[in-house]
């Protein structure tokens, strides 16, 4: 189905699309998904895709990216390609459980749902809803509130497939789970995948997500990922965004943490068109610790907007946010970091830092902290900078024989390093450092660039 959307009637067109396909959607999906659809679409109809008058979307015209006449499917198209031809993992020593999504649908390079020997379950969301409805009933749509964000509502209205990861109680994981989201299509495409990661008490998950576009079409992704981190459980999540500049991405992640849990959520953005990343964190049990990090490198007309919302709902929790951006040419960016400390969340520690480098006078960055603190015994701090490379450091490097260009690269690499050094998997960290260096040198083409080292196809 290919419809030209009009900005004025965008919302009703998307709502109509739902009603036209509702029966087919319902018939194809499990009741867990279906039970939320009507209310989600009702919320969507009321809110509509946000424009800049929405305080949370002040710096990004999300409606604009919907206007391409995308094809939208409510069942997967057959996209034939050979995984072996496309991929060769070149992270040395990184032996991963690989899950592929192609255009938002689980790709059957492995069983649709697999139970590993230690009880870990990995595979397709649609299949998980069929085989393990009780897990989905307990977690699906519990953390991503569609009443508050139209993009989440739209995703919930149409959700059918995505990645499902389940780590049972007390299970640690020997292999990193690597999710690769591939966009590959002979036509412009709108994609909405829905993902769920459940880490039960005392368990641990290490997840790497790579987003790639492998054909030169316009893409729009509106994805939602819910992550439950149980008591004393641990999450290490690294998201690498590396799509071409006609690929726009709206990504909403919800991290729900129970007592004494620990989570690192790190988003590295190398390439893409318009990117909006929402990361919501709820610290729901005492003693939980969260690190939400981000690094983006933008040039040309790219736009990268990061929005974070950390909800301190329990006492004695710690949150540290650290976001950095390097903007070249005419790139624009935004950071909005919201921290909510609820009245009984005493002994909260909440930190937020946003530092940015503008390499040209045309690049623009907006940064906005929003702190709402209702408890009195807390430590909260925030700081933001937008500046240029340090001239004194540049000169110091030059006096040691390092040319200006090389000196700039060293300083930019060093700037990004603070975020990258928190990637917990060493081979991946090395690889990311290398990718960021290449990206800064302008040597990174849009396709042959992921940890999987895709062969050139576009």
């Amino acid at each position: 189905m290919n419809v030209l959307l009009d900005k004025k009637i965008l919302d009703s067109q998307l709502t109509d699309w739902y009603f036209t396909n509702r029966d087919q959607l319902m018939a194809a999906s499990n009741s867990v998904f279906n039970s939320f659809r009507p209310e989600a679409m009702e919320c969507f109809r009321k809110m509509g895709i946000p424009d800049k008058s929405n305080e949370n979307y002040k710096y990004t015209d999300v409606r604009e990216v919907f206007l391409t006449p995308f094809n939208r499917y409510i069942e997967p198209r057959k996209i034939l390609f050979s995984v072996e031809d496309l991929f060769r993992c070149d992270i040395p020593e990184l032996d991963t459980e690989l899950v592929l999504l192609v255009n938002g649908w689980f790709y059957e390079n492995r069983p649709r749902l697999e139970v590993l020997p230690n009880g870990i379950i990995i595979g397709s969301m649609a299949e998980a809803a069929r085989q393990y409805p009780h897990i989905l009933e307990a977690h699906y749509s519990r953390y991503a509130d569609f009443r508050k964000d139209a993009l989440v509502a739209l995703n919930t209205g149409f959700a059918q497939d995505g990645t499902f990861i389940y780590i049972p109680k007390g299970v640690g994981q020997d292999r990193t789970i690597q999710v690769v989201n591939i966009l590959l299509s002979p036509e412009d495409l709108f994609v909405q995948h829905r993902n769920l990661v459940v880490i039960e008490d005392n368990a641990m998950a290490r997840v790497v997500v790579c987003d790639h576009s492998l054909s030169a079409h316009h893409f729009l992704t509106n994805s939602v990922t819910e992550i439950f981190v149980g008591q004393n459980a641990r999450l290490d999540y690294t998201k690498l965004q590396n799509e071409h500049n006609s690929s726009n991405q709206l990504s909403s992640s919800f991290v729900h943490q129970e007592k004494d849990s620990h989570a690192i959520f790190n988003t590295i953005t190398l390439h893409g068109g318009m990117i909006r990343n929402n990361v919501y964190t709820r610290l729901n049990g005492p003693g939980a610790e969260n690190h939400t990090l981000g690094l983006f490198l933008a040039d040309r007309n790219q736009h990268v907007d990061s929005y974070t919302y950390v909800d301190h709902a329990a006492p004695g929790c710690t949150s540290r946010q650290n976001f950095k951006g390097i903007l070249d040419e005419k790139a624009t960016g935004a950071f909005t970091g919201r921290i909510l400390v609820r009245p009984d969340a005493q002994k909260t520690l909440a930190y937020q830092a946003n530092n940015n480098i503008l390499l040209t006078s045309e690049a623009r960055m907006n940064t906005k902290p929003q702190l709402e603190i209702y408890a009195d015994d807390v430590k909260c701090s925030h700081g933001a900078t937008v500046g240029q490379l340090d001239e004194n450091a540049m000169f110091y490097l030059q006096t040691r024989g390092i040319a200006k260009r090389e000196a700039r690269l060293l300083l930019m690499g060093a700037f990004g390093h603070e975020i990258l050094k928190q990637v917990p998997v060493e081979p991946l960290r090395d690889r990311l450092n290398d990718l960021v260096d290449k990206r800064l040198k302008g040597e990174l083409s849009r396709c042959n660039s992921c940890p999987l080292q895709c062969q050139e196809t576009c």
Partner: protein
Amino acid sequence: MLEIRNLKASIDGKEILKGINLTVNAGEVHAIMGPNGSGKSTLAAVLAGREVFEVTGGEVTYCGQDLLSMAPEIRAREGIFLGFQYPVEIPGVSMVNFMRTAVNEKRKYLGQPEMGAADFLKLMRDRKALVDLDTSLANRSVNEGFSGGEKKRNEIFQMAMLEPKLAILDETDSGLDIDALKTVANGVNRLKNKENAVIVITHYQRLLDYIVPDFVHVLFDGRIVRSGDKRLAFELEEKGYDWIREAN
């Protein structure tokens, strides 16, 4: 080696150097002394190529070439080294990465092959020992969290790595206790030979007990107002800078 003729430089329209003349030959140690604000650090910065200073007159010839037309990094690769009064902290750039880049950029420029990892690490070890620089410092980011003394020793360490023909040490003695001062001076002395030269910029005579100069120059109000041998330094120490002020 270095021939400075009537060098004038200004910043934001204010003239700091008002006609400097100085000749430095291979094998020589020159000390430049003078009161605060006389232009000592400006002279060092101009020779190293700092762009905020505008050269408004004169010329500088270095090894037969026009120094002022060279970019700072070319000057460095040609063998000029500036030891900073205030070494810059560069978080995120490791000392190893920094020095490897610097050494190899110079080698590339001179048409030499890049230094292999093993040879490079051996060189690092040797030169660290020269200035008593702690091994753990070399694994940290450039100057980040270094004490004042460590920063100065790190400057001499870098000098030892890069083996300059002409080293300009800008108040390397400031902020050092006597032990650190000896270590730094000892490093400089061991690097000294007949082929290279050193310009030591200092406020006090103290350093010159350890790095013995062949020539001492007094800089005052942007000009060299007196030159002599090391006895001039003692005279200055005795009479103070007022002696110079009154004479000019």
